[in-house]
């Protein structure tokens, strides 16, 4: 919970010595409350108070980092229940499960999916985030060899291993890569805590109820384990859905610190049918899952999930935008039609989808309208004849096409006259209003 300036002031020395850079303790407290200063600037606060204040200022759900370097995966840090209140912060992660008891062939296939199931969409790379390596063969060499193979892919790892001896060896083998270890339970909470502390790795904790889960995290915290991931133990859609909502609510609405951690879910263990695995996973993307473990990464399964995550975790206030530039479809040449539209990503997707499906070589000029759609941009003065004209000139469009014809969206037909004045030598053609009519329009196109 955010502390007020006064709450903080009560804990400061009240000597007004000024060493923090502001003249009084009260002024410093106010700056702290509005996050314009760091507590460290005051040399006189006790460690105890420091601990207390940083605890109170911490987000209700801890951000946990798995992996290291540029591939490190961050989860948690959420502060709201609903995405319209404030952006969901750290996109949930998808983990590919590989069991060491699987055949060599299957293991190779899964490992190759990690790289092949990557897609680019609106300038983002969509991919899985983690590899969960599970010890189920009973053969520790087999497990360690799989751990090493997975490690070589440079993806953050989850080590799912119930044998602590084997787990320790895997931690040796992956030293410095900060895998998440799974899982501390009532019976092994002490030894798992020591492993997590010794190797400085995040720790998953599993219990059969939220009350038990909460006592386990308390125990871990008292031992000094800070980076925790929760598994509420349920293995059905209904129960997991409920648990995820309760965990999020407890952390955010009730400030229950012991449940203030990201949660891991296992749709792969809840159901075996592919369609249902995807649907359950979708449910956990929408409703508060932190890490979602999947059986495989076949593209037809994960592409929809990756796109869903991208949708849910966008800033709800800011329209999504695509880059202002000239997009090419089917290798256009100097005789191909030249269309312009706005950079609202939905507009772009729908228009480009229609152009693509027509298979007709086409140029598409996307004008930066700050992410507004055609009509909205026009009424907001962001898709004007000046703007389109300067785009056409700035991008040297005259050099790309012989025909000197520019097609504008039907909704802004009104701009035709002005644009022809701004762009002498060009003919402005009014295109269709609806994107769905673009293919027919392009088929009729003659230069």
């Amino acid at each position, binding site marked *: 919970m955010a502390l007020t300036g006064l709450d903080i002031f009560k804990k400061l020395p009240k000597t007004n010595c000024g060493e923090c850079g502001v003249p009084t303790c009260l002024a410093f407290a106010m700056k702290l409350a509005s996050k314009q200063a760091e507590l460290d600037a005051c040399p006189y606060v006790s460690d105890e108070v420091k601990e207390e204040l940083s605890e109170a200022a911490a987000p209700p759900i801890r951000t946990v980092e798995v992996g290291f370097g540029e591939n490190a995966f961050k989860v948690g840090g959420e502060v709201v229940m609903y*995405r319209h209140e404030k952006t969901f912060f750290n996109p949930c992660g998808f983990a590919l499960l590989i069991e060491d008891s699987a055949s060599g062939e299957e293991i190779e296939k899964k490992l190759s999916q990690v790289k092949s199931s990557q897609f680019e969409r609106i300038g983002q790379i969509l991919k899985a985030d983690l590899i969960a390596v599970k010890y189920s063969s009973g053969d520790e060499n087999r497990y360690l060899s799989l751990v090493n193979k997975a490690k070589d892919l440079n993806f953050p790892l989850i080590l799912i291993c119930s044998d602590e001896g084997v787990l320790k060896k895997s931690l040796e083998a992956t030293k410095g890569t900060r895998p998440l270890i799974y899982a501390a339970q009532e019976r092994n909470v002490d030894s798992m805590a020591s492993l997590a502390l010794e190797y400085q790795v995040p720790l998953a904790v599993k219990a059969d109820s939220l009350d038990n889960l909460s006592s386990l995290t308390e125990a871990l915290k008292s031992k000094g384990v800070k980076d925790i991931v929760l598994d509420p133990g349920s293995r059905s859609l209904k129960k997991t859905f409920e648990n995820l909502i*309760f965990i999020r609510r407890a952390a955010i609405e009730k400030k229950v610190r012991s449940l203030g951690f990201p949660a891991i879910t296992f749709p792969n263990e809840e159901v075996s049918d592919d*369609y*249902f695995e995807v649907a359950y996973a*979708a*449910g956990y993307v929408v409703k508060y899952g932190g890490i979602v473990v999947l059986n495989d990464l076949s593209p037809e399964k994960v592409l*929809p999930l990756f796109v869903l995550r991208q*949708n849910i975790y966008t800033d709800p206030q800011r329209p999504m935008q695509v880059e202002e530039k000239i997009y090419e479809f089917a290798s256009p040449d100097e005789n191909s039609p030249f269309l312009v539209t706005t950079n609202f990503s939905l507009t772009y997707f729908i228009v480009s989808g229609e152009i693509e499906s027509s298979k007709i070589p086409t140029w598409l000029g996307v004008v930066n309208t700050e992410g507004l759609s055609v009509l909205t941009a026009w009424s907001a003065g962001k898709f004007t004849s000046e703007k389109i004209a300067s785009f056409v000139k700035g991008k040297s469009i005259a050099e790309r096409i012989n025909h000197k014809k520019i097609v504008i969206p039907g909704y802004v037909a009104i701009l035709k006259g002005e644009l022809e004045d701004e762009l002498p030598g060009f003919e402005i053609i009014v295109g269709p209003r609806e994107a769905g009519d673009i293919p027919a329009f392009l088929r009729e196109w003659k230069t």
Partner: protein
Amino acid sequence: MENLLNSYTGKIREVTIGGDGLIVGGQNTLPFYLFEGEMPHKPLVAMEVLDIEPTDWPPALTEPLSGVLNDPLKWAKKCEDLGADLICLYLLGTSPDGANKSPEEAGELTKKMLENIKVPLVIYGSGDKEKDPKVFTKVTEAALGKNILFGPAQEENYKLVAGAALATQQNVIAFSPLDINLAKQQNILITQMGVKPENIVMDPTTGALGYGLEYCFSILERLKLAALQQNDTMTQMPIICTVGKEVWKVKEAKVSEAEEPSWGNAEKRGINWEVVTAFTLLLAGADIVVVRHPKSLEVLHALIKELLS
């Protein structure tokens, strides 16, 4: 965990559709939050039927529905047999830009369809603002006493559309373009015409996964929160989402594996696209989702059953 439970002051209205009185709505809690409230009637899955044979549907859709796509009556019967809760008939053929079928033909089809199937009927016009009201006049006359749900009543034609609903005592779909205030406004305008709130279902515009789903998602969540937490009576109408029609036009759902090998099996991809979109919207607050693929119907029914168990 008891102190984690919330309570709500409002409740979603119950709307009765069809001759036998299928009820949608009535919940006093967020979608599937059965630990703190009730959903007395399950969310419904409708299947889409067109009055003209679709020409741009991918094989993933035309194969499981082959043999019926050129006959709306057989098509609807098949969907009923597959277990659809509702049939959602789109009168696309009435569009002046297309086949331009007459209102009389639409009325005739409505009559036959009602004789042919037992599940309740939802009817969407082509969306043409001038033609739709004329079509609805005939459709609602043909459906007299059958309590259909029809629309869309749009900003430009809601008076005429609501008039048809009033004259024949049937349910109307209040359409709004992805804007929570306009959604509310449309309900207010239609009730001011004399239509009872319990005869209105909202269509706040559906966005497919990857194509505006998140906007639709947040509007649904906000409508449900306003209805339940703030007891805002003009947001308490059940919500319909036309998922199939939005999903199957996007390229990720449609393109063949040959064209996009890296996207994997086209049929499964399309079904996943439809199920993920529909399920996400059910979790946000949709009370009726309309889908195209028989497999989507099956999966969504099972998901709803599990969450309500």
